[in-house]
């Protein structure tokens, strides 16, 4: 019997006939399932990106704030004027440092969660990782100001320990700490997913072949965890590239500006939408390249 063939006299209701017809025409099923989401993405998301990116080729009349629809590359040329290249470099550097830091913090944590913890402890840890995401991001960044500022919680602790007063708020170091904190759950979850998927049999086989713990870790566990790390790094990297709230709250306004808040300033304060759009090209290009590399490393299966 051919698969899906309707049996005469039994399943000949309307629904059955439609579903049989659909089963035979795979292309129709494909079109029906894919068209709504793709339509959404193309009509709304892609069209929006195109509209924004087209603005990068225009200028704005500084007095009336109206866009002048004249093609020009001046906004892109302005990307090379100091201090924009330094700002881009600073942002990428902080994003990379945050990514590496979060990966290092997440790996042992996720390993414990995935392979050592009992199911009850694992659930509890899962809740513990997800819960901070429900406490407002803004409130958490603001709490770090209270912690890191002069005579704040950190200073108070180090003073009591006789270690002096670091007073690190309003610096790049403070931003690095806050970013590492805020994006940590986004790194832990995919790494946990990747580690959890490693079958016990792999570890046992590795032991059978004579590898000791560290060798197994290095040659079996870490390579299999890599797609999870890369998936998490997509979040940590891109979120740092575009964030403007953390530099606004915890940066000093000079020497701590990142791509995100320069874009934001140019939309609001400077009202130079075309330049903001031109600057937006930079994270888009960086992340597209990053995504292609990530996909090659298998991160998409691990997200």
């Amino acid at each position, binding site marked *: 019997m051919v698969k899906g063939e309707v049996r005469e006299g039994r399943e000949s209701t309307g*629904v059955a006939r439609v579903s049989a017809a659909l089963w035979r025409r795979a292309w129709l099923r494909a079109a029906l399932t894919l068209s709504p989401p793709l339509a959404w993405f193309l009509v709304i998301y892609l069209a929006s990106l195109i*509209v924004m990116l087209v603005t990068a080729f225009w200028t704005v009349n500084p007095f009336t704030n109206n866009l002048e629809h004249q093609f020009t590359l001046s906004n892109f040329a302005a990307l090379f004027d100091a201090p924009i290249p330094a700002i881009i470099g600073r942002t990428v550097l902080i994003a990379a440092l945050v990514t590496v830091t979060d990966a290092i913090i997440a790996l042992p944590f996720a390993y*414990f969660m995935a392979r050592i913890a009992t199911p009850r402890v694992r659930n509890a840890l899962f809740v513990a990782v997800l819960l901070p995401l429900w406490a*407002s991001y803004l409130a958490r960044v603001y709490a770090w100001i209270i912690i890191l500022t002069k005579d704040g919680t950190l200073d108070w602790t180090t003073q009591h320990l006789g270690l002096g007063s670091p007073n690190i708020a309003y610096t790049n170091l403070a931003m690095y700490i806050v970013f590492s904190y805020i994006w940590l759950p986004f790194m832990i979850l995919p790494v946990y997913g990747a580690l959890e998927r490693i079958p016990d049999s792999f570890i046992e086989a590795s032991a059978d072949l004579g590898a000791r713990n560290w060798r197994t870790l290095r040659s079996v566990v870490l390579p299999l965890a890599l797609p999870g790390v890369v998936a998490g790094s997509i979040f940590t990297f891109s979120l740092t590239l575009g964030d403007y709230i953390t530099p606004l709250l915890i940066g000093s306004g000079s020497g701590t500006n990142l791509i995100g808040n320069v874009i934001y300033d140019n939309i609001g304060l400077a009202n130079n939408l075309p330049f903001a759009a031109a600057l937006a090209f930079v994270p888009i290009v960086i992340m597209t390249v990053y995504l292609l590399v990530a996909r090659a490393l298998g991160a998409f299966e691990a997200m």
Partner: protein
Amino acid sequence: MEGRATRAALVVWVAGVLVFLFLPITTIVIFAFDRSNVQSWPIRNWTTHWFLVAWEDPAVRSALWLSVKAGVAATILALVLGSAAAFGVHRFRFFGRDAVSLFLVLPIALPGIITGLALRSFFTFDGINLSLVTIIIGHTTFCIVVVYNNVISRLRRTSGSLGEASMDLGAHGLQTFRYVTLPTIATALVSGALLAFGLSFDEVIVTTFTAGAQTTLPIWIFGQIRLGQQLPEVNVVVTVVLALTVVPVALAARLTGGGGMTRSTVQ
């Protein structure tokens, strides 16, 4: 595999990470009881007065309600569109499939300010007024990605033969979907929905660009942070929201078995 020393070290590490994760949360909860609206350490005067203020504040209620409305709408849309996309990409081989799967990740992979700026330019260009609808559109766009990721990773780990077997036994497409497919992806849908709602509820960057005069909870919080006059009220609101979400998050974690299938499942 792991020795005792390694296990002990890992426990210490996990404890350290938990302290790190909850340090600001503890700060927020403690400062909800701070009398002074200029918040700094150490706290000089303690009070529960701000709880009353928050309870009676109509702005908090309407912001909370608006956030819930936007979150629910965005999550429902994302569930439908995200699972549809996951099914489409998983089941069918078509021209441009790799490009599509890359494209579907963009709203989360590109920084929020770009998504927000792009959407606002688009709405202004087409003369669409910013409103709750545009907020929902913005949120749905990145929520779809979250649901899509969850569902497609579940689909990749389940065998397609179950569906075919169901059809061999005489069930038509809808019955197969209801009795075989849906239960398989149910927990992926729940965890996807939970994550999507959580992202939407706390989202501020895209919302700032897609909201008109509407105030969602994060926008209200940002306004209060700007004003700097009722910061303990913000801490109170965040504390209460946190207390309210512990139970659903814990339930969802238990339901989804700690985030996925257990190790012993067939690859």
